[in-house]
């Protein structure tokens, strides 16, 4: 009897050791490119290429400094690119939270004709990948009307290309966000609305004062799930923004990379735009993890 138990404990310990070894090996696999990137961004080009042959590739040793970072700022308006990306991301996420949660509220808590059909259509659009509509949409936005400020006059013109709004407006409404809000809101008891109605509250007040404060987790999930794609936008701004001052960081980096083979500076640029996201992720990792998990709950 005791022998059996001992061997079982032994087996269990054995298994635990192995799973730690496996996880550690995988951790190395997932982290080594990023460590290599950060470390290389601190080294002169010649040293990066010689260090590659040994473990020195992953260690901040030798001629370490921030010269590459200074070089990036000298060569391209990377501060401007960062500002553009922050502006676009904040507006997509912020306006998206308002617009999509209102839609989710209307779809989950209000009675109106066509509601079921609208909800079904919104869900159906989830199957359309953005890549399908990207090319026709460039054509479409190039025909849309716009107002331009020209020589002290507000003029009516056509074409949304090369602007901030072309990077923002198409991505505010999001079928998946609407779906998540609708689902979350419908778990909140309807009796709350009824009580507020009896007290004379209007629907918008119910939305603002009752539902929004109760739906913190849904707002956090949607914010996180829309933040990453907005920050990482690439295909769309590549096509609709040619003007350098309006470029977001990702497209700015691709242009920088094409013109430049000084790997130290390229690594400095990639580190520069990866660090803020990593900091945000590590500080909110619990929320990130539960948001991603929530996105998969209903297929």
């Amino acid at each position, binding site marked *: 009897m005791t022998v059996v138990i001992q061997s079982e404990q032994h087996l269990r310990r054995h298994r*635990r050791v192995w*799973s*730690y070894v496996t*996880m550690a090996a995988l*951790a190395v696999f997932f*982290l080594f*490119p*990023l460590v*290599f990137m950060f470390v290389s961004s601190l080294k002169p080009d010649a040293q990066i*290429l010689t260090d*590659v*042959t040994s473990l020195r*590739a992953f260690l901040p040793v030798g001629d370490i400094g921030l010269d590459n970072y200074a070089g990036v700022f000298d060569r391209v308006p990377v501060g401007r690119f960062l500002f553009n990306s922050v502006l676009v991301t904040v507006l997509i996420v912020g306006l998206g939270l308002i*617009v999509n949660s209102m*839609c989710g*509220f209307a*779809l*989950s808590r209000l*009675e*109106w004709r066509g509601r*079921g059909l609208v*909800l079904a259509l*919104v869900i159906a*659009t989830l*199957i*359309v*990948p953005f*890549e*399908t*509509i*990207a*090319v*026709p*949409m*460039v*054509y479409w936005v*190039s025909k849309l009307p716009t107002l331009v400020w020209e020589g002290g006059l507000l003029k009516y013109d056509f074409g949304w290309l090369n602007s901030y709004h072309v990077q923002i*407006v*198409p*991505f505010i*409404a999001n*079928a998946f966000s609407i779906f998540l809000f609708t689902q979350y809101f419908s778990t909140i008891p309807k009796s709350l609305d009824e009580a507020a109605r009896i007290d004379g509250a209007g*629907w*918008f007040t119910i939305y603002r004062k009752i539902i929004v404060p109760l739906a913190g987790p849904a707002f956090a999930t949607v914010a996180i799930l829309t933040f990453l794609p907005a*920050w990482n936008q*690439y*295909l769309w701004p590549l*096509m609709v923004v040619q003007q350098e001052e309006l470029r977001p960081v*990702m497209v700015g*980096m*691709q242009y920088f990379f094409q013109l430049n083979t000084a790997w130290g500076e*390229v690594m400095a640029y990639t580190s520069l735009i990866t660090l803020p996201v*990593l900091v945000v*992720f590590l500080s909110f990792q619990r929320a990130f*993890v539960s948001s991603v*998990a*929530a*996105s*998969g709950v209903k*297929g």
Partner: protein
Amino acid sequence: MTTSLTAPAAPARQQLPRAHTRARTRRSTAGRRERRTGLAMASPALILLLLFLVIPVLLAFGLSFTNARLISPNPPRFVGLDNFVRAFTADPVFLRSTLNTFVFAAVVVPVQAALGLALAVLVNQKVRGVTAFRVIFFVPVVTSIVVVSILWKFMYQSDGLINSFIDTVTFGAWQGTAWLNNPSTALGAIIVLSIWQAVGFHMLIWLSGLQTIPEELYEAARMDGASPWQQFTNVTWPGLRSTMVFVLVTITIAALGLFVQVDVMTQGGPVNSTTTLVYHAVRKGYREQETGYGATISLIFFVIVLVIALVQRYLTRDED
């Protein structure tokens, strides 16, 4: 879904006849206001979806039968099925793009789904420090795919990190190649980094599926003397059915849309070995300004995505 949403309203309606007339008129004005408010609150999002999702989809259909160009003084002209005929008979790069896209998806979908599940099982153990590993495996997901592509392009160079690693572990017996410049290895190289970047996302989806399986089932299986593998095949796997559908559909759609890695690393080369449907659509429809033909390729891509997603849904449907 729809039925569960409309159901709670029914009892309120049934109460109506019992209320006296004054209350009923008040209720019906309230009802009218409710309908109007509902539409008003939903409309900003619905109008935006109409403008930037529905209309572009319709345009993809409409433009593919025309010779529209992005910048042109002439209005688009109807050309019938010319674009489709051109794609399948006169554009070998399109056929190659379709093939590459399928090869990429055929490898990435099963491998990434299986690795994601393996990782999820690994980090679902109740051992100390396991959360830290979950976070580490997820780090590539929050790294931009543009950054990842540039970084791996550097590592894939002939004198890069990957080859020096191969050189070290094989003691110089095996020489690597310039992975992205070799037509027979370029797509494989892109597959590796794509899985490396995205697998952490699906690990978390699998993990949330795993955590819905009650612990008692495992206890019962252990009592019956089930080995870890038997526990997996008899308890874990059946419990993951709906998660599996979601994971397969999302990976498939993402894999078929391969674009950024190709645009940053290879521009479709060498000798078209990495060109994909979306890359080709952007090349034709945007860079060469042939919007009509680009829309045709986008439409074909969409039909493929739709068919595969529906087939997957059908094959993995609930038996009951």
